């Protein structure tokens, strides 16, 4: 471990660096202002959004626009918008805190409307717009005088977004582009005043345009009848000979992919933050219900399996929180290094964000699957009432289902995770080769000497887990080379191993930063123990499946022997069940998520 090169600044480095080797951003080190903004938005969410959540769900444009305007007054629509155009241009941490806190208002519909307005609906103009475009649109968007939307998807191109068929052709006088085609699933589509629409110039150069609602030939189709987020507008947009002034081309011809992927990269961690906020409120509702509901003469909260579920939800949320804010911290740090006055500032910001594409995709996958898991447990805790609309679980359960599909489906994001790892390994951006070479020495080293401190066991398990993942990764690359990309089930296994390790590493790093021995800090350490133990077992499982795929069902003897040596260091010496009881009791005593 000692020969790990210091000061890597590349994404994915958690895999080759020891736990706690860098300062990670955690909720505990938010600044005073971050906390105050969080408090303000949480008050807004619980006093303005939560009581109106049923009204919002009935599909009420006026109400939603009114709420957006109230948020605009507070400055909440301008976090990522430059001051010159009416925004505040604060850090990414603030924008994540805002969306997380808003999501605690329990209206996924409204969170989505807000996220499009402040995210994909306006950021392409912030990043790539000309001064004239910014001047014209941003002040209207930051005040919610206008509503914005983003149309990338088409009927025949979803995940494969660059294959869009919508065309843009320069008019004969050269003054405008003529757009033809049909876009699908545009959030805010029915309510928007301005759209960012992607089209192929001359049928082959993928590009983006700013298109106003009242353009002749732009037709908003009927509202989709959706499974969830029913309070938000989702429509097709049909374009028939729509004349868009040439100056409304965004950035350059053929740069549509850059615009689209930048928007997605930033959208991913914000979606994760929104899912995190939603998860915390769902847990709170589940705890409240479990303590009130009595069966067999006692509150169901007291049943051991209910405690197990509450503990699982809490562990999942705490670990998601740890990895999501760490990721945002990394992206913020990379952005802070840039020169704000550089005319290419936003282009560089896109590159800095892409550096952490692995972590951002992990946050999207882990965050959305956290809310999926938490709402599913929530329904189960409410029993039959979980299935009934008047009770607080059915809606979030339906609402969150889309989170695993949009912003790049979780399948696509898992491909991104492993795909970037392959690239970073082959280009030697990460010292994977050295790390693999050192595995044997690591496995022979003296554990007690290598790991000390309160989390020695957990650190040992996770550090061994990293080597195990590298071992499987190495074997997969040896067997399949570049073609590993096409072995999607295997790359998913690798993506999951990497993700669990990043989450565990982030959680342990966070717990190590906690100084005090207050009950809340002790419980955080308990979470780290539960999580490390469970992750170790899962990693061993995934490695077994992966290696059997690589070796076509028959492990070579030295691989089998290796596995046993990994296993020795990863088998947890922890009574997970007992720890979960203690954790659940603590969550009960605090009436909800206490961290």
């Amino acid at each position, binding site marked *: 471990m000692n020969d790990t090169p210091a000061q890597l600044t590349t994404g994915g480095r958690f895999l080759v660096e020891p736990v706690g080797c860098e300062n990670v951003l955690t909720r505990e080190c938010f600044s*005073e*202002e971050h906390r*105050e*903004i969080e*408090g*303000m938005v949480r*008050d*807004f969410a619980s006093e303005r959004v939560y009581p109106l959540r049923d009204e919002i769900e009935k599909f009420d444009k006026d109400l939603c626009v009114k709420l957006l305007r109230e948020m605009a*007054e*507070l*400055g*909440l629509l*301008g*976090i990522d918008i430059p001051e010159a155009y009416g925004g*505040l241009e*604060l850090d990414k941490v603030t924008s994540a805190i805002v969306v997380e806190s808003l999501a605690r208002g329990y209206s996924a519909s409204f969170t989505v409307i807000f996220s499009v307005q402040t995210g994909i609906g306006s950021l392409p103009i912030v990043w790539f717009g000309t001064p004239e475009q910014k001047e014209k649109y941003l002040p209207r968007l930051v005040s919610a005088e206008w509503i914005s939307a983003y149309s990338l998807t088409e009927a025949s191109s979803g995940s494969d977004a660059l294959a869009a068929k919508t065309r843009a052709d320069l008019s004969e006088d050269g003054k405008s582009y003529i757009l033809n085609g049909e876009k699908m699933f545009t959030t805010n589509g029915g309510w928007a005043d301005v759209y960012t629409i992607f089209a192929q110039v001359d049928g082959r150069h993928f590009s983006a345009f700013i298109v106003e609602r009242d353009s002749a030939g732009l037709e908003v189709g009927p509202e989709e009848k959706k499974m969830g987020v029913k309070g938000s507008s989702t429509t097709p947009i049909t374009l028939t000979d729509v004349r868009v002034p040439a100056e409304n081309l965004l950035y350059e011809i053929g740069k549509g992919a850059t615009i689209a992927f930048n928007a997605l990269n930033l959208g991913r961690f914000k979606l994760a933050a929104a899912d995190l906020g939603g998860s915390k409120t769902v847990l709170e509702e589940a705890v409240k219900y479990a303590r009130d509901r009595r069966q067999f003469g006692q509150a169901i909260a007291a049943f051991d399996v209910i405690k197990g579920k509450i503990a699982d939800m809490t562990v999942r949320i705490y670990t998601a929180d740890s990895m999501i804010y760490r990721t945002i911290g990394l992206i913020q740090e990379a952005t802070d290094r840039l020169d704000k006055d550089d005319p290419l500032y936003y282009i560089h910001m896109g590159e800095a964000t892409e550096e952490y594409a692995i972590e951002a995709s992990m946050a999207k996958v882990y965050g959305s699957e956290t809310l999926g898991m938490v709402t599913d447990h929530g329904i189960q805790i409410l029993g039959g009432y979980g299935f009934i609309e008047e009770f607080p679980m059915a809606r979030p359960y339906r609402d969150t289902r889309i989170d695993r599909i949009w912003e790049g489906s979780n399948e696509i994001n898992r491909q991104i995770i492993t795909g970037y790892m392959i690239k970073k390994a082959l280009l030697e951006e990460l010292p994977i080769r050295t790390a693999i070479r050192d595995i044997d020495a690591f496995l022979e080293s003296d554990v007690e000497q290598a790991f000390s401190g309160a989390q020695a066991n957990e650190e040992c398990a996770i550090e061994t887990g990293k080597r195990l993942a590298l071992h499987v990764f190495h074997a997969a690359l040896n067997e399949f080379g570049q073609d590993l990309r096409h072995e999607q089930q295997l790359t998913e296994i690798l993506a999951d191993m990497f993700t669990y390790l990043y989450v565990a590493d982030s959680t342990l790093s966070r717990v190590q930063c906690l100084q005090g021995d*207050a*009950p*809340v800090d002790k419980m955080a350490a308990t979470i780290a123990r539960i999580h490390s133990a469970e992750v170790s077992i899962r990693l061993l499982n995934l490695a077994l499946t992966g290696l059997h795929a690589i070796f076509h069902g028959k492990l070579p003897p030295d691989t089998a022997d290796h596995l046993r040596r990994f296993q020795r260091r990863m088998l947890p010496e922890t009574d997970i069940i007992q720890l979960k009881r203690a954790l659940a009791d603590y969550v009960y*005593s*605090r*009436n909800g998520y206490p961290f």
Partner: protein
Amino acid sequence: MRIAVLQKQVPDRESPLRVSDDGRHFDEQQVSFKLNESDAYAIEEALQIKDRLGAETEIIALGLGPERIEKTLREALARGADRAIRVLDDRELATDPYAVANVFAAVLKDQACDLVLSGLQSDDLGMGQTGILLGELLGMATASLVIATEPGTTSIRLKHELEGGWYQWLTIPLPASLSIQTGINQPRYPTIKGIMGAKRKQIEVLNASALWSGEPLQTCQRLYVPQKTKHTEMIEGTSDQAAAQLVEILKTGIKVL
């Protein structure tokens, strides 16, 4: 015009309260704190007066308590108060409104305030006395249960609640101390600009012991959760007498009829 507003930090209603081992406090580790509800209306009323009267008006937010109340005062600054004074409660006076009023009177006696606004009562102790006591100590006119204000230059017209759903308009001279009823206005949220700007505003810190050396009139002896007891009452007499007595109990005793 200069307005002082009392801002008290109280336990959040949602927080679980556990009596601490010494039996005189509650366990603070489990509790989150927030601004007292009616105090939020008091600061909003001050801000609205300032909105009407203009920038000449100065708002001072004032609090007594341990270090953690800094957060509550910063919130007041973020909402638009101009400066704040935080008094460290180094004598544990907070449970006695008379002592609290004396400390605040000592702070305010040289501040030449035209108005002192406080919340009607605190969510934790619910005494409802501090604003009136403070007004008396400072020789100000006082009013309580205030639900509207119209400040003039030498007097203030105000509406306050009487009993039984009645209310009354009256005019009292300035300076005055008003206790504000909840619902008088719609408290605003701090804006992000306000939060960032609060950093530059000043919070002066004083010690309660240096301000007042008198003896409190009330102290908290013991804190305990209301004890529930069960007992069965047998109703004696003939069935008619028993029925009549039962009806009486249902009507006046447990008030379900």
